[in-house]
């Protein structure tokens, strides 16, 4: 679905990462791991077409991403941004409805199917009771769930999630990860998510992309990539392996 070849990421004045190649296919759930400042967010923005790549190519279903009109692109690729700094004046439902913009066709407001899609998305993230509340009154975790709902209402085939678990309590972290796994497995969507927790990727993700500082990135099936040696090198700290019925997991060695 979304393939990148030999991608170079840079922010003004600094090259973050070179030579990233990976292919997100339907049904896959990728974890993107790396230290602070290693370029994870820049990767998400670049793959979503929000900023140009410093080098390399990105193809969506075989077509160059840059050639797509922005609305057409937003019908295929949804992004959950890490930072959203603006306050929103309307209700929670108004906020989620904005996710329907790529599909909207009317001058006269939202169609019934837009509302239905937004309400279903709110139901999925357990915010249906809050639909008419003002968005500004939500807590941090509730806002994060509203953002996830907005992206669900957008109905993209490719989901790029930048720290989707931030602000969520443990129960909703598990719910969100279960939701993403279901979207990948049952609906055949392609999902990549930036995570900071070394516990989750091994239990939920099918693939992983490790972004080492400098010119090195490692991409592949989770079982092959998520080894203790690779992760210790990635984070630069010791890890202990914890045995669990489905396999081994890593916690920081303190």
């Amino acid at each position, binding site marked *: 679905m979304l393939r990148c070849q030999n991608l170079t990421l840079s922010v003004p004045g600094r090259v973050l990462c070179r030579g990233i190649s990976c292919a997100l296919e339907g049904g896959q759930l990728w974890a993107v791991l790396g230290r602070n400042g290693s370029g994870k967010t820049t990767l998400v*923005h670049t793959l*979503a077409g*929000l900023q140009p790549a410093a080098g390399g190519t990105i193809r969506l279903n075989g077509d160059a991403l840059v050639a797509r*009109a*922005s*609305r*057409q*692109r*937003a*019908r295929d690729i*949804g*992004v959950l*941004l890490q930072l*959203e*700094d*603006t306050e*929103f*004046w*309307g209700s929670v439902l*108004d906020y989620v409805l*904005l*996710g329907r*913009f*790529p599909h*909207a066709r009317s*001058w006269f*407001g939202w169609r019934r199917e837009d509302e239905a899609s937004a309400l279903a998305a709110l139901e999925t993230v357990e915010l249906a009771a809050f639909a008419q509340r003002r968005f500004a009154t939500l807590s941090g975790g509730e806002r994060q769930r509203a953002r996830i709902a907005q992206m669900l209402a*957008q109905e993209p085939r490719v989901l790029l999630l930048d720290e989707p678990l931030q602000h969520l309590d443990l129960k909703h972290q598990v719910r969100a990860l279960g939701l993403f796994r279901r979207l990948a497995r049952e609906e055949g969507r392609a999902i990549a998510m930036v995570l900071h927790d070394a516990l989750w990727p091994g239990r939920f993700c099918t693939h992983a992309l490790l972004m080492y500082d400098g010119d090195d990135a490692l991409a592949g099936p989770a079982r092959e990539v998520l080894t203790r040696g690779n992760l210790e090198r990635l984070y630069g700290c010791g890890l202990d392996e914890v045995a669990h019925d489905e396999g081994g997991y890593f916690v920081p060695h303190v």
Partner: protein
Amino acid sequence: MSRPLLLAVMSVAAVCSVFSALLLGTFPVSAAQALDSIFHPIPGVVHDVIWELRAPRAAAAFACGALLALAGALLQVLLRNALADPYILGVSSGASLGALLALTLGAGALLINAASLAGALAALVIVFGLGFRSGDWNVYRLLLTGVVLATGLSALVSLLLVMAPQAQVKGMLFWLMGDLAYAGSPIPAWGVLVAVALYGIARATELDLLGLGQFKARSLGVAVTSLQAAVFFAAAVATVAAVMLGGAIGFVGLMAPHAIRLLGVAEHRALLPLAALLGGSFLTFADTAARTLWAPQQLPVGVLTALIGVPAMLLLLGRRR
């Protein structure tokens, strides 16, 4: 307040404002006479007062207020700054400088208008040129360029005021504070008003998204750069049209959109028409007050907009939700 109710209230206010502008003044006109004159026009003094004097002025006031409200709402979302008003990009300072230069040189009304238009357009070109440099829209640079330019132009305006002969200063002050007594034909302004309002409503959802930030808007499929350029020009054209009618009338453009937001409407599809109705009727009321309160003396309407608007706004701000 619910949206249909708010729309009804604003529409009634608009009709009342225009109707009272037709009735009130030094020449007394009764409601019956006015209605008669509207539906069965018969030549005569009443007809002339209504159709030659008061109707054009009410139309000018309404268009001016609605244009300022639209420009304010558009600039507040474009610059992502709640304090943005139509004059923040230097349009009014450029127009004032042009007009005052023409006044100093003893030019006639037509030349004054031409000079203020030239000044406004020059300020816009400079702000857009500097703000859009290297193809990269940075709203902070745009905002600062406008504010800096406006400050410089205001200094020149002050200089002109100090150096002008005493007899001209009063006319200049009226121009600076905003005054609809010398408004020309309101027809071009109404054309601009309809065009900008339709454009804003057509792009309403994109404006909502732009309010969430450029990245967010882009991620949901808004072509952000072209939208920003178009919104800039729509706001600029609206401001120039308003300034050409009434000079730099303050307060309306900043506060009309905020009043609507405080009443609970933030979606641009509803916010833009409601703010336009509010701005238009508010300025029409204020202008009627300006020419009747101290008749036959005329007060500058820009002073009255603030005098009436400030308490109303403070009341809204203090309201518990």
